[in-house]
C-alpha cells in the first residue's frame, strides 16, 4: 500500500477541515471496501480520515414519528442488535445481516456501503425504497439529498472535496419493505441482481410502491412504480411490478451473469420482494 497519513478527528469540524486541506483524502469507517481498494492501488489517498470517533457519525437513534438517524460510521451489527431499530425497520436489519460475514458486519457501515457507490451495493436499493436521505456536511455548510441521487457512477458519489456523509435519515414507515438479492452462494457474495421494495396499502389496494434495483446499471437505480398506485393486491399487480423492474434495468453481461439473466432476475426478485413487503405491511397494521 502507498504511504498515507492518518488522522482520527473527534468532531465534524476537524474532519471537514482535514478533508478540505487534502483533496485526495478518504474517510475511513469500517474500511472493508476502502482498504481492499487501496491495497489494489485503485485508490491512493494521501490522508485517511478515520471518522469513527465523531459522535454524530456513531448515532443510531429511532424516534417513532420522526424516523431513524443512522450515523455514517455505525457498523452493521449495531443495527440488527438494536431491538427498537429491528422492530421498526426489519428489512434494514435483514440487509445489515447479509452484507459480508460476521467479521465484516463488525466493521462495515451502511454509510460506507452508500459512499462506496458500488452498482451492487446491497443496502442502497432498500434505502431508496425506504425514502432515505443523506445528510452531508462540508466546507460550505450542510445539505441533504435523496439517497436515490447519491451515486453518480460506479464508485463515484455526489460528495464534493471536503464533504463527508454524516448520517442517513430514514422516515417512519407506514407499510412494509424488503430487499432480495440473488447470489450463487448462500452468503458472502456480490449480488447478480438485487431489488428493494417498499409499499403502503390502503383499503386492500396498493397506495404507493417504491422499487429500486442493484447490479443492473452503473449505479443503483430507481424504478418508476407510480403506475402501481391504486392497483389491487393480486398476482397481476405483482407481475406488473416485475415487468416494470425488468424494463427499467440496464444490465451488462459479465462473469456474474448475462444481461438477459439479470433482467429476468429483476422481475422475479421484484415480484417476490413486493409480495413480501405487502405481507409485512398487512402484519404491521
Amino acid at each position: 500500500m502507498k504511504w498515507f497519513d492518518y488522522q482520527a478527528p473527534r468532531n465534524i469540524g476537524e474532519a471537514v477541515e482535514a478533508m478540505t486541506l487534502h483533496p485526495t483524502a478518504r474517510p475511513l469507517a469500517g474500511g472493508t471496501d476502502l482498504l481492499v481498494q487501496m491495497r489494489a492501488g485503485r485508490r491512493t489517498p494521501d490522508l485517511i480520515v478515520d471518522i469513527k470517533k465523531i459522535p454524530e457519525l456513531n448515532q443510531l437513534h429511532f424516534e417513532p414519528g420522526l424516523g431513524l438517524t443512522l450515523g455514517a460510521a455505525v457498523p452493521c451489527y449495531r443495527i440488527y442488535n438494536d431491538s427498537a431499530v429491528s422492530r421498526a425497520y426489519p428489512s434494514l436489519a435483514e440487509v445489515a445481516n447479509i452484507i459480508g460475514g460476521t467479521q465484516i458486519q463488525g466493521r462495515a457501515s451502511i454509510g460506507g456501503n452508500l459512499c462506496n457507490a458500488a452498482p451492487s451495493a446491497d443496502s442502497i436499493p432498500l434505502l431508496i425504497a425506504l425514502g432515505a436521505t443523506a445528510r452531508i456536511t462540508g466546507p460550505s455548510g450542510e445539505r441533504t439529498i435523496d439517497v436515490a441521487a447519491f451515486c453518480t457512477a460506479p464508485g463515484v458519489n455526489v460528495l464534493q472535496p471536503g464533504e463527508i456523509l454524516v448520517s442517513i435519515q430514514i422516515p417512519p414507515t407506514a407499510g412494509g419493505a424488503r430487499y432480495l438479492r440473488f447470489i450463487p452462494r448462500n452468503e458472502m457474495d456480490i449480488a447478480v441482481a438485487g431489488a428493494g421494495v417498499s409499499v403502503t396499502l390502503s383499503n386492500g389496494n396498493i397506495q404507493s410502491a417504491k422499487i429500486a434495483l442493484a447490479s443492473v446499471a452503473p449505479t443503483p437505480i430507481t424504478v418508476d412504480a407510480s403506475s402501481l398506485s391504486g392497483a389491487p393486491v393480486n398476482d397481476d399487480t405483482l407481475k406488473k411490478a416485475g415487468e416494470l423492474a425488468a424494463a427499467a434495468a440496464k444490465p451488462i453481461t459479465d462473469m456474474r451473469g448475462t444481461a438477459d439473466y439479470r433482467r429476468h432476475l429483476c422481475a422475479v426478485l421484484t415480484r417476490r420482494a413486493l409480495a413480501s413487503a405487502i405481507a409485512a405491511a398487512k402484519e404491521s397494521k
Partner: protein
Amino acid sequence: MERKVHVQTTINGEPAEFLCEPRQSLLECLRDILNLTGTKEGCNDGNCGACTVTMDGRIVTSCLVLGVEAEGAEITTIEGIARGNELHPLQKAFLEEAALQCGICTPGFIVAAKALLDQEPHPTEERIRWWLANNLCRCTGYDKIVKAVQKAAQEVTL
C-alpha cells in the same frame, strides 16, 4: 512527511505498544512487529477470515483494520485463547474432532467460534454455520469444524 505512529493498545489482556506506519494493517503489526504469528494471513482482503481477531469484543478480519486503529482498543488473538497451559475447550475439540488439516484457517475459526460461544453458549448448527460464513477452509470441508464447535459448546457449559 513519513512518520511512524506510536500505538498503545491491549493485546490478550496485557498492555502493548508498538510503532507502525499508518498503512500497516493490524495483521502486519501483530505478525511482523509484535511477533504474534499465530494469526494467519490468507487472502488479505477480508474474504477468508484466517486473520480473525477480536477487537473490543467483536470479531474482525485484522487484514482490514489498520494498526493505528488499535489505539485504545482491546485485541484478542489466538495466543490469548488458551487458559495458561490448558487448551481452551474449542482447541481441544478441534484436535479431537480432527477439524483441521493444514491448519492455516484454524486460528481464525477458533477465535471466531469462541466469540460466538461467549455470547451464545448453545448455538444451533445453522447459527454456527452462518456465524462462521466469513471463515474459509479449503482442506477439511466444514462438517468436522462445525462438529468441533458443537462439542466445545457442550464442554464449555459443563
